[in-house]
């Protein structure tokens, strides 16, 4: 079904947590390993605007719907970061702009080269590259929803579960946008399918890999995606991705878990 961009922009709001009693975390704090995962999630959410940068270097920024979506998407993800930072703050973990800047500083050359690489590829492959971005975005948003759902299940903390449910609900709309865009661009375009298939299978890594240490990525993936339940969730994401035109058989999430040694 086509994504209704007007309806999305009209109803886009920052996630609300003012009615949730975060003080319960003082009496019933989250374990350290969960806080580490939560911190990773907050970093990823705050970093969204930087992913936008990669997307904007390609032809897609010329399209009004994509611009409208990205404006709202950026803001929603920023507020997810703020919401998670509020939970971390109750645990005396400060995520301020200076800390985020310090993290971004650590990225070094790889990060600086990304927009160039993306742009050159975008220029070479042209409009078909937008299909890669949209499929990539869909894979990331599906992973994010799954990660939040897993976190809620694992912690069994009513306040955290409710907050993560609200965040995941917004992520579901992001999935809807990315999948509608990806499907449209992949359908009946075998070149776009081939390029997307190649890019996802060769380069996709769990969301946050490009801004975190491998240790942190492994920690989060082990925390959320290990064991039979975790693997089942990963398979579900893979099934969604491989259900898009021309992407049948892709198992990029499970492959990434295997590479990280998460079982």
């Amino acid at each position, binding site marked *: 079904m086509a994504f209704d961009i007007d309806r999305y*922009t*009209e109803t886009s709001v920052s996630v609300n947590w003012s009615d949730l009693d975060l003080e319960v975390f003082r009496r019933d704090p989250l374990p350290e390993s969960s806080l580490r995962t939560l911190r990773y999630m907050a970093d990823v959410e*705050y970093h969204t*605007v*930087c992913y*936008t*940068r990669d997307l*904007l*270097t390609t032809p897609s*920024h*010329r399209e009004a719907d994509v*611009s*409208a979506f*990205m*404006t*709202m998407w*950026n*803001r929603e993800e*920023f*507020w997810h970061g*703020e919401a998670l930072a509020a939970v971390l703050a109750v645990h005396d973990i400060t995520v301020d*702009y*200076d800390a*985020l*800047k310090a993290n*971004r*500083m650590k990225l070094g050359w790889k990060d*600086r080269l990304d*927009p*160039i690489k993306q*742009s*050159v590829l975008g220029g070479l492959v042209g409009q078909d590259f937008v299909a890669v971005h949209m499929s990539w975005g869909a894979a990331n948003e599906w992973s994010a929803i799954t990660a939040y759902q897993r976190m809620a299940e694992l912690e069994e903390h009513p306040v955290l579960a409710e907050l993560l449910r609200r965040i995941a609900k917004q992520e579901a709309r992001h999935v809807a946008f990315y999948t509608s865009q990806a499907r449209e661009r992949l359908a009946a375009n075998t070149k776009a399918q081939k390029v997307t298939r190649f890019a996802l299978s060769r380069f996709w890594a769990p969301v946050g890999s490009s801004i975190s240490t491998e240790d942190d990525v492994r920690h989060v993936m082990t925390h959320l995606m290990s064991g039979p339940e975790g693997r089942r969730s990963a398979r579900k994401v893979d099934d969604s991705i491989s259900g898009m035109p021309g992407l049948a058989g892709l198992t990029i999430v499970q492959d990434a878990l295997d590479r990280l040694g998460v079982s």
Partner: protein
Amino acid sequence: MNPSTGVGRAPTVGRGPAPFDVRGFARTAQGSLRDEFDLEAIARAGLAPECRRTLAALAELEGATMAYLRNVLVTATHKDARVTAFLVSWAYEKYWIADALRRIAGEAEDPEDRAAGIATSGRGPVRRALAGFVQGFDVIGAHLALGYVDDLVLDLAYARLAAAAIPIATDPGAAGPALGDLIARIRAIKSRHTAFFEGETCRRLGASPRAARLARREIRRSPWPLGGAAVGAAERAAFVRFATSDGAAVAALARGIRSLPGLDDRTATAVVRRLGA
């Protein structure tokens, strides 16, 4: 700020203004204006063609945030989480300003011309990213200076729309007051953007002669208004004619630019010249 022109804000250097509260700004960002104003009624009331054309151009210029984001985020500016946090809400507010303006004025003219303008405007992301390697963190001040100057330029048009010097509507008293209220609201929303850009620019350009040098260069070589590529050449020219018809306002614009540390008369003159005023 001169209330009749909306430009020529007093320089803040040496006043030590309180740091801009980015979190507070994000928390109180203004969304859609559709409920607050009867935009259809303003559109129906009939606008002078010159005003309608300017409003349509402003809608395109305000909505061109993605082009600005692309240009600045491929450089070190994306590392500064305080700046990116601001830009997220800034883009959101401008999206809804553009939405309100578009609902009043309708779509801008000559879309073909516009598409061509986008395809050929300015340096591409690769060149900017490569230049950003060398420019490092000083480029952030230059990017924020662009935001400040662009706000001053667009405010020339808002000021003229708000002023009673020209008939706002073909039937004065119909769209006039309602449109005036909307313009005042938009200028109030934008005043926070200007405050952020001005404060950050002053701080950064004042602290680094290199940042000031980069700012001078970026300002001189940029097309004004900044999102000018988003509108066609004819629409841009009409916009500039409308916005810069008052010599005093243009002089105030030049003063506003010169008020920033490190920005000289040559830079201000270059903006005025590039505007074609």
